């Protein structure tokens, strides 16, 4: 079986900034979450996978094709859905006509079949009843869903979603989970997020990216397991912790190397994530 996404030694620089460095990553079908702090390189990585950006170094294979080759690129784009971080839309268009336009760009030339597909994706994101409102009259979260709807057009084999849950209310987040759950098993989803809850709820697999490098790639449960026995509760921030924060109860949660006898707390993926990114942050400060 060809891997839906295979990156080897991928690097990307923007003038002075290294956005990605020697990224090697192989994704399998299913939902993979991409976690990382601001500026980690998530968007850069997703743009490369979505054929919107070419890397400076390394090789990229998406859905078995090479995006650097025109024929490969077209083959990928025919099977791809992409939601950019800032999706935007033509504000003077209705949600229906905008998504319909994208459907035309996706080679859906039969008008009635295309309209049926546009209605399907708008219903999927809960915009069925708003389809004929102008986009400028929609709320920010609804506009985001218009972006999501266009990504779903044509049942793509690979969905690349850059922060799809930003701006969605809790009900819409649930609906988004349903949309992902309703995808066929052989579809591949790569989505970035800042929310470890999203990862826990949506993504069996997770990639943690920081400063353009892959720090972790594995099952989400394995990310949580990294922090097993390393999360504890205390009266005060602990200097042995990589990260500490105040809980709503006024106590402190610490992630790092616990002192003997510490009040350990069950670990979740967010703790594993903080352990990974917190320690690199600490190293950066030290160096």
């Amino acid at each position, binding site marked *: 079986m060809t891997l839906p996404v295979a990156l080897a030694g991928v690097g990307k620089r923007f003038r002075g900034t290294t956005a990605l460095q020697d990224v090697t990553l192989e994704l399998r079908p299913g939902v993979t979450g991409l976690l990382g702090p601001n500026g980690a390189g998530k968007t850069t990585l997703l*743009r490369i996978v979505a054929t919107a950006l070419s890397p400076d170094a390394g090789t990229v294979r998406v859905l078995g094709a090479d995006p650097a080759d*025109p024929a490969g690129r*077209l083959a990928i784009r025919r099977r791809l859905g992409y939601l950019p971080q*800032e999706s*935007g*839309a033509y504000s003077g268009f209705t949600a229906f006509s905008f998504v319909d336009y*994208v459907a035309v*760009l*996706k080679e859906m030339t039969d*008008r009635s079949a295309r309209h049926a597909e546009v209605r399907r994706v708008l219903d999927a994101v809960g915009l069925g009843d708003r389809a004929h409102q102008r986009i400028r009259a929609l709320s920010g979260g609804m506009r985001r869903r218009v972006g999501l709807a266009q990504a779903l057009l044509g049942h793509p084999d690979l969905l690349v979603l850059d922060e799809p849950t930003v701006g969605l209310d809790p009900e819409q987040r649930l609906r988004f989970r349903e949309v992902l759950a309703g995808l066929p098993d052989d579809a591949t989803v790569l989505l970035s997020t800042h929310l470890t809850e999203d990862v826990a709820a949506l993504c069996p697999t997770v990639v943690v990216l920081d400063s353009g490098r892959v720090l972790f790639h594995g099952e989400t449960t394995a990310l949580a397991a990294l922090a097993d026995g390393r999360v504890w509760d205390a009266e005060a921030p602990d200097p042995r912790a990589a990260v500490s924060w105040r809980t709503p109860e006024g106590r402190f949660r610490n992630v790092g190397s616990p002192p003997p006898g510490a009040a350990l707390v069950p670990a979740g993926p967010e703790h594993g994530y903080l352990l990974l990114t917190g320690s690199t942050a600490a190293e950066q400060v030290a160096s």
Partner: protein
Amino acid sequence: MTAAVAGRDVVVGRDTVAAMARAEVRYTARNPVLWAGAALSAVGTWYVSTDGTFTEGRSVTDGYGTWELAAAPLALAAFLVGNWAALRERPATTAEMFTSTPARRWDRTLGLLAAAGVPAILALVLMAAQWTAVVAQGGVRIGQGRWSSTVTPTPLELVGAPLAVACAFVAGVAMARVVRSRAIGSVLGFVGWAFLYVFFWIWFTAPFGVFAVSRSSVVTADLGRDPSTAELARWDGVDPPGAFAETYLAGSRDLGFHGLHLTYVLGLVVLLAGVALARSGPDRRTRAVLVAGLLLVVLGVAGQFLVHDGAGTWMGSL
């Protein structure tokens, strides 16, 4: 072409470009700015068709010489609509979203260029209405007083305004692909439009008349202060010396010259389309479009100089 030249495996098929064109035609046909321009042009057409501009016999540069002038507001609207449509997509957002679809920016530009047909058809309808009104009044009168004659406009003279309006739309798209700002593009377009339409008398002088985007089929010549009767009789109409000129200004409809001029305008449309495509990403077909446009322009311009001796006389009548 698409499939034959580049292959379905490298670029989207002709059917997709056709679907994009249909979508752009629909959006353009619904654009209120275009309809506002068309409404103003319709008022202008109605005015010049009923106030005797073409039938009463006015100065050769004034009456029939302004045959296409009523299309001016439509041309401006077409420029703006084309420009704004091409700038709907924003680099960081929608353009980024569209990048990952099979249709490339080049294909999207091609689809949009097809929508130039919408304002062109509106212009054709207006010109047909003007033609019908003028023919119902017995035809066009060229020149004034003793030296005037009446002619019936030909179908060829219906083509100029639609071509000029299509040219404006395509120029708007090309402008958008060169200057990314709607504001700057619109101002530049307005200045260009004002130069082409508001100072329309420039286009009766050589060599500018050769390069006008919109002009009538009337070609003028300065006959001096004392032309012979035979010379006066050779022209469809003559303005005697008056308030504006001390010499006899003659004008005749010259369909051969006009046909070559329209060839030049068509070339301009194709050339500007080529510029818009060239600025929309690589595609090997761009060159063919540019070459075809350039050939038509050269053919039209050279032809005009060849058939009209006066075309090369600096600031002479044309």
